């Protein structure tokens, strides 16, 4: 097979090749090329998934020297932490492209940027060296900026700049933190850094580096304080992306203004990049720092859950409401992740694993349900050119299929058993509960409030009297039904049988939990 050992590279760079092809091809073929390339990537991702051995560690590794003077390797691989995210990216992107099948303004540029974005996303989930991980991380940022800026809604300029400045400000903290880690250890490799951290060498090396730094600058830093600063730097970059309360205010604007496919990808995948960063970088490299600040971190997660839900309740804009639901849902994932560090030592191993496993499942599930919800918002926006909830109502009468898909997506987001949302949230609760009763109880308030805003949304859009203006709106067409059906398939399948995803991430989850 041509891909052979380089299947991850192929998966990552095929979209880039597609983007180049779009550059030279005609206008009308842009969407075909985009879809075809994203399907090739999907095929690669499925092959990776099929060949993935849940018991083994890093797989499909690729590594060669890239910039030898700086000791930078091009290093790729997937393990239980990333394989589900790779799959999610591969599934969502073609659907988002399909959502824009009738894109009629600057379509070449649109699909070009979309493919660029896809490369960035795959790159983040497969890179194991911070150097090119960071390049991909930024590569995800720039196309999204233009997607919002050019094809966004009325306030697109404001939203796109806000999105950009926020994420960039976060990135800088992270870049600085990693630069310092590099100077202390001489490596950007995440696997090596993890090993150094686990064996305790990292601490010694940072201490040594701080001594040197103090000699040169006379600042009088302490090693512990310095490491904590590095931790917060990294934390900031990732927390903004997740987004964790109170770093979330870019999100409602960016989501609301972005074009449908942009919102789908933004919610389903770009947010996961932040969470993934916590799993890949923060947990292994800064375990002690998380444990030291655990109450703050758990508190921020619970604030995301509860305050995110309450803020969603106050929204009158359909899309903004769905955007806030992302803050709410990512809060569950972060709560599960931080629970891992809530108590040091081997105690509560199973509980911590449950919380972390649940968080990983929640990431995937939120990807599916948020993409579906944003797609549903997009469908109705395309038809009515408004997102004002007060103008809708009674749509179920004229658009029963739309109402059905929206209803299922809504219940999936609400965490209804039988659909995908439940198992992840339940495992997070089950894990967090014995570890931190207080935060678990507080976060479960979110269960009720999430229900309130989602059901109110459903009522305002689909039930009661139909607005006369919309009485001739067409129901979903075949293309739209297809997108909805694919997403609904995953909602039902993962709701009834979530084991494959849990099994895939299990050994990686246990590995992470074992670090504490």
């Amino acid at each position, binding site marked *: 097979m041509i891909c052979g050992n380089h299947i991850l590279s192929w998966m990552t760079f095929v979209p880039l090749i597609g983007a180049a092809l779009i550059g030279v091809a005609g206008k009308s073929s842009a969407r075909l090329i985009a879809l075809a390339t994203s399907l090739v990537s999907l095929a690669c991702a499925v092959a990776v998934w099929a060949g993935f051995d849940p018991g083994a560690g890093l797989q499909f590794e690729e590594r060669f020297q890239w910039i030898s003077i*700086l000791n930078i390797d091009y290093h790729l691989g997937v393990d239980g932490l990333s394989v589900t995210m790779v799959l999610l990216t591969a599934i969502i992107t073609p659907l988002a492209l399909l959502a824009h099948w009738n894109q009629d303004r600057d379509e070449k540029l649109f699909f070009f940027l979309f493919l660029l974005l896809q490369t960035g996303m795959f790159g983040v989930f497969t890179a194991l060296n911070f150097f090119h991980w960071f390049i991909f991380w930024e590569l995800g940022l720039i196309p999204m900026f233009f997607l919002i800026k050019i094809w966004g809604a009325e306030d697109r300029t404001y939203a796109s700049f806000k999105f*950009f*400045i926020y994420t*960039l400000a976060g990135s*800088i903290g992270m*870049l*600085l933190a990693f*630069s310092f880690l*590099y*100077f202390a250890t001489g490596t950007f490799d995440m696997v090596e850094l993890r090993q150094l951290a686990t064996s305790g060498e990292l601490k010694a090396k940072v201490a040594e580096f701080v001594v040197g730094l103090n000699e*040169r600058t006379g600042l009088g830093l302490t090693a512990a304080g310095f490491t904590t600063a590095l931790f917060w730097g990294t934390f900031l970059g990732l927390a903004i992306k997740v987004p964790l309360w*109170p770093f*979330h*205010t870019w999100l*409602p604007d960016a989501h609301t203004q972005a074009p449908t496919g942009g919102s789908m990808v933004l919610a389903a995948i770009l947010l996961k990049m932040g969470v993934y960063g916590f799993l890949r970088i923060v947990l292994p490299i800064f375990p002690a720092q998380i444990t030291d600040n655990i109450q703050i971190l758990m508190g921020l997660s619970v604030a995301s859950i509860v*305050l995110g839900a*309450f*803020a969603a*309740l*106050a929204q009158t804009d359909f899309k903004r409401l769905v955007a806030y639901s992302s803050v709410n849902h990512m809060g569950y994932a972060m709560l599960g992740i931080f629970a891992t560090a809530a108590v040091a030592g081997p105690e509560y191993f*199973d509980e911590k*694993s*449950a919380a972390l*496993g649940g968080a990983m499942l929640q990431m995937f599930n939120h990807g599916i349900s948020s993409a579906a919800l944003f797609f549903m918002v997009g469908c109705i926006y395309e038809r009515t050119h408004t997102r004002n909830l007060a103008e809708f109502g*009674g749509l*179920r*009468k004229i658009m029963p299929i739309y109402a059905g898909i929206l209803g299922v997506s809504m*219940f999936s987001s609400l965490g*209804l*058993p*039988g659909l995908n949302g*439940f*198992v992840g949230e*339940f*495992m997070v*609760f*089950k894990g967090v*509960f*014995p570890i931190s009763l207080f935060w*678990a*109880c507080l976060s*479960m308030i979110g*269960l*009720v*409030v999430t*229900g*309130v805003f989602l*059901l*109110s949304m459903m*009522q305002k859009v*689909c*039930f*009661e*009297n*139909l607005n006369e203006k919309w009485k001739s709106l067409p129901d979903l067409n075949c293309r739209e039904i297809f997108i909805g059906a694919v997403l609904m398939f995953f909602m039902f399948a993962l709701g009834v049988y*979530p*084991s494959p995803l*849990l*099994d895939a991430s*299990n050994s990686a989850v246990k590995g992470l939990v074992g670090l504490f």
Partner: protein
Amino acid sequence: MNPVWIILFAPLCAAAIITLLTRKAQMLSALISCAAIITGFVLTLQLFAQQGNWMSPEPLQWLVVDNIVRIEFGATIDRLSILMLLVVTGVGSAIHIYSLGYMKGDPGFSRFFACLSLFTFSMLGIVLSNNFIQIFIFWELVGVSSYLLIGFWFEKHSAAEAGKKAFLTNRIGDFGMMLGVLLLWTNTGTFNFAELPAKIAAIPSCTLGLIGALIFCGAVGKSAQFPLHVWLPDAMEGPTPVSALIHAATMVAAGVYMLCRVSFVILPSETALTLIAWIGGITALMAATIAIAQNDIKRILAYSTLSQLGYMVMAVGLTGITPAMFHLTTHAFFKALLFLGAGSVIMAMHHEQDIWKMGGLWKKTPITFATFMIGTLALAGVWPLSGFYSKDEILLLALEHNKALFIMGAFTAFLTAYYMGRECFVVFFGKPRDKHAYDHAHESPWVMTLPLVFLAVLSIIGGWGSYIPHFLKPDEHAAHHDAWKGFALLLVPAAGFLLSAKIYLKADASDAPVKAALGRAWTWVENKYYFDELYAWIIRYVQGTIAMLCELFDRWVLQRLGIGGLAGTTSVAGKTLRLLQTGNIQSYAFLFGLGVTVIIYYVVVR
């Protein structure tokens, strides 16, 4: 394949087939749905006939990841679940058939049956569950079916509101239940009903009381107990067969069933028992008082349901698992009967539900009238109908354990006879109040009256020979109460009927004399003690305020002051830095440059 799986999954298949394939073919859809539940009923009867030789099927390992999470999907077959299966499939079959007539001509005919089948599946799931998580899963699924069916006529504002209210009120109860289940799991390490009883003893009594109370929260929501009772009367917005099946006979009884199923958690804790008994008693009395002042034929029945559920919950609280289940069963018969009868009246009156627009209907709808009277007498607990036996067991239990609750219960029984008498007399006797509607009133078709007759028979014989308590506890002789006490209690409903007859059994009956006698109290019960207003106020001011504050905080504090301030600083810094640079470099490019410079600097210095 074990027949239990067929009983459980046939309705699910029916729901899926209707939704995906036969939505357009209305009659076919309905027949598929009916076939599924009747199959379940027949198979359950077969199981029932095996008397004691039951084998629970091998549980499926649903969610198993090492030691991290281990959740089975099983089916418990024992006397408790078989009795409940019989109730759900038996009463359910009658109501499915009745719906063929009642829902005829509704544009959502297929959708109705799909939802009904989904409900049946979920309800059977609760009945068969062998662990807490499984029961919780189906618990939520019945919540959804209930939501879909209450809001069946979604164009109506009140229906959409009522569906949402039901789901969310239940969600509050579920929140408590989930906490209780997790707390129990933390203390025992298992969710499984079969493994739990052996591990209960090790839990400190204080914790156990808390667990019991929290798990009871789930029942408070689902069985509409005080203070979460507000959703059930509004749930009457759903089609009448739904009110009969879900909001009277089966789903609302699921809370009681769940308490009986997990009685091993509740019975050892005195605190939990006291709480449960009192909540039940309060609900029974409160709902009965409200019922005397309602005018909607279905709402009166809804408050009556609340009141009877209160009895069952009270029985559980008084350690009477068997009496609770006994009353649950007989109540399912006669309350389903009453609702279906009410539906038949509503149809006859062309969708009129106000009892003060009816009157004299007994001549026009004789079968409905006769069966409705049987239901009424059974509900009031008149000998020898089923309600007499089951209600007496509960009242006598209360007499033994707690005199105060007995008095509340007995007074509730009096009120029950009184408000049911009022409803019957106003609807079926007296002179027709709406002449036009009366002239066009007609008896319902046989698909509707046949289920009425079937349920009427059950309502009569359901309590005979104490067969049901014997079935539940074959080796235990039913507590032999003195027969005279039971018959003495007959005076209570008799008094109720007499009083209501005196007031309402006349041509120009009205509420005026009662209103005058009760004064302010009438206003309170007429307005349901203002619970809805209180909760609406809380939602509007507390929840609304928090939501608004969150929004304001995001928009102003974080965005304008925090980030705005930061952005201001950045732009000042940027302008300053721009002075140093010759070109017009974007700020981000500059910052990248800075990063790279830092890297190179350190590499060189090192």
